[in-house]
């Protein structure tokens, strides 16, 4: 295997991984704080893609179909606020009333929320795929013989910027500290006077906004969106979060990159049809050796 090909595979893996990473962060954050597998998270990603689509369709008259990265970033930020708000409503309606309920019940409301979002969009936008009204060009450059389009580079940079932003926010701000505290012991936090509910709400907002950003990016880059597009990526992002150690944010990103690379190399070595067998076979082996994931902390099971 020559170097150029190897580098191309790595770039492919990193690119796919950056999408997985943005979605995986939301899974990991929510799990870290309230130990909930938010199965509707992939559909928030889909919702982000559709918000971006609607905004671009409305705004097409204003911007005249020209998609500069700057316009897309603005659209992405608005879509992030929208999906963040949906995430917040979702938490308030579907999850908060079940806070004390058995974990299985919350899991089922999450699956319910996922279906409600998918088929809600199917009803309002129709079951046929939609195509983004703007296109990113095919212009590409080569580094050491591997090819990357400028659009891909821009997407990866935006993803990295969002990830670093989140990481800094969680590590350095007061509410970030509150999040970390709640993930360790929500009861003690309540006793210490932290408004646990509002921090959880904020967590949902941020996680959903990131998934929404990934949705808009995917819509703009791949061009095609449909109401079931969140299903597979939701599953992959969840996998990435588990590889990295669910609940750990840097782990989620690392896990996403590992999964992206596994898929890329799996396809190259064994062919597309074996890609998932390779990636998920590795996942099983890896988890038997290290059940807490790459950066996962010791699991303290709460009773």
């Amino acid at each position, binding site marked *: 295997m020559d170097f150029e090909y190897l580098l191309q595979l790595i770039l492919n893996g990193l690119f796919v991984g950056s999408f997985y990473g943005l979605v995986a962060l939301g899974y990991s954050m929510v799990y870290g704080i309230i130990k909930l597998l938010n199965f509707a998270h992939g559909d928030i990603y889909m919702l982000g893609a559709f918000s971006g689509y609607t905004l671009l369709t409305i705004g097409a008259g204003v911007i005249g179909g020209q998609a500069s990265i700057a316009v897309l970033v603005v659209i992405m930020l608005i879509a992030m606020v929208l999906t963040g708000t949906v995430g917040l409503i979702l938490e308030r309606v579907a999850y908060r009333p079940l806070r004390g309920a058995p974990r299985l019940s919350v899991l089922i409301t999450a699956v319910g929320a996922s279906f409600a979002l998918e088929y809600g969009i199917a009803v309002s936008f129709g079951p046929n795929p939609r195509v983004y009204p703007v296109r990113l060009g095919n212009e590409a450059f080569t580094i050491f013989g591997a090819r990357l389009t400028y659009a891909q580079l821009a997407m990866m940079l935006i993803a990295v910027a969002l990830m670093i932003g989140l990481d800094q926010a969680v590590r350095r701000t007061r509410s970030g500290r509150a999040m970390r505290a709640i993930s360790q012991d929500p009861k003690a936090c309540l006793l210490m006077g932290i408004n646990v509910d509002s921090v959880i709400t904020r967590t949902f907002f941020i996680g959903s906004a990131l998934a929404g950003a990934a949705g808009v990016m995917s819509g703009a880059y*791949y*061009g095609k969106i449909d109401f079931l597009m969140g299903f597979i990526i939701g599953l992959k992002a969840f996998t990435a979060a588990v590889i990295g150690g669910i609940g750990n944010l840097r782990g989620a990103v690392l896990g996403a990159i590992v999964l992206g690379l596994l898929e890329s190399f799996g396809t190259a070595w064994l062919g597309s049809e074996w890609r998932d067998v390779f990636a998920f076979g590795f996942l099983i082996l890896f988890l038997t050796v290290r059940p807490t994931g790459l950066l996962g902390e010791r699991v303290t099971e709460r009773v």
Partner: protein
Amino acid sequence: MIGKTRIGLGVTAVGVALALASCGGGGLTSDSQGGAAATTGDILLGMVTPLSGSSAAIGPYMKNGAQLAINELNASGGVLGRQLKLVAEDEGCDPKTAAAAAAKLVTAGISVSVGGYCSSATLPTLSIFGKANIPMIIPAANSTDLIKDKLPNVFLLNGTGAQQAQAAADFMKSAGLKAAALVDDNTSYSKDITTRTAKDLEGQSTKVVNQQSVTAGEQDYSAAVTAILRANPDIVYWTGYYQEGGLIIKQLRAAGYKGKIMVADGSVDKQLVTIAGKDNAQGVLATMTQTPQTIPGGETWIASYKKAFNADPGPYSTQSYDAVRVAAEAIKNAGNTNGKDVIAALEKIDGFKIFSGSLKFTPEHTLTNGGFDILVVKGDDFALNN
């Protein structure tokens, strides 16, 4: 996810239960009950077709095509003095939904089935209709898997995967192409074509340099694209449906692929051009059964279709139209709607005019001649490649 699987199983269970219930009834009372052999009232024709899901765009084309034939037949007095009526059920291109839909049609008492688009979704309906003794004239689905079991009630009105693969292989050889990459989406229809194309190309001047299956429903096919580019083909033949087809064309071009791209009939849809982007899609070739737009003298037919439905006909409108006409012809020749008699009449049809030529079924119940054309994307849509 867990939820999806469980619900899916539930639907299958209901479908199987319905099928069993209706077959039980039919078996006990052979021809006195169940619409199949009723002698008065409307003759019901059933159609299982995608009205939702990834191929939802096709359903209305098929439904309208069939309805147009029914309108014409009814206007000229119907069949055996009875009017025809179409009952359409959604299959969503999903085997579980299709099985339930077929069971529903059996219960509704249809005489002939004139539906079937996605081969993988049509497969489970074969035995459901078969047990109820209902002949199937399948207008679109064309995987060779459908006729593998030689079920007496199954007739294919579309060219088969084998005929399509042959057309693709012939084109590659005659165009002097040296290296082909074959990509499918791992469904019955799609894989059938790649496998057969590879077989047809064995020992020929065109070599298969890369063959792979991708997963449908994803957004990113860069890994597959990188593998294709590395094999350095002159032509990439995609045999899946248009949604993934559009994405793969776009990603191939973005990755700098300059060679030819060809798609199979499942990808022949204007949406393919929209998804791939107009610039990327120009010159993309396709193996396709005849459409009204490519048939000489199809304009009058298109005009009456437009008048009836206020929409343009699309892929499989003509085949569905023909399926109804073939069904009517067979019922007329049989003199009744009993499944066995209609099947015998279908086997005897010789020289009945349909869009793809004169109809005579082979002993395998496929068309004698497949009639595949090579199309090419010009502007926003496909046109005949000259």
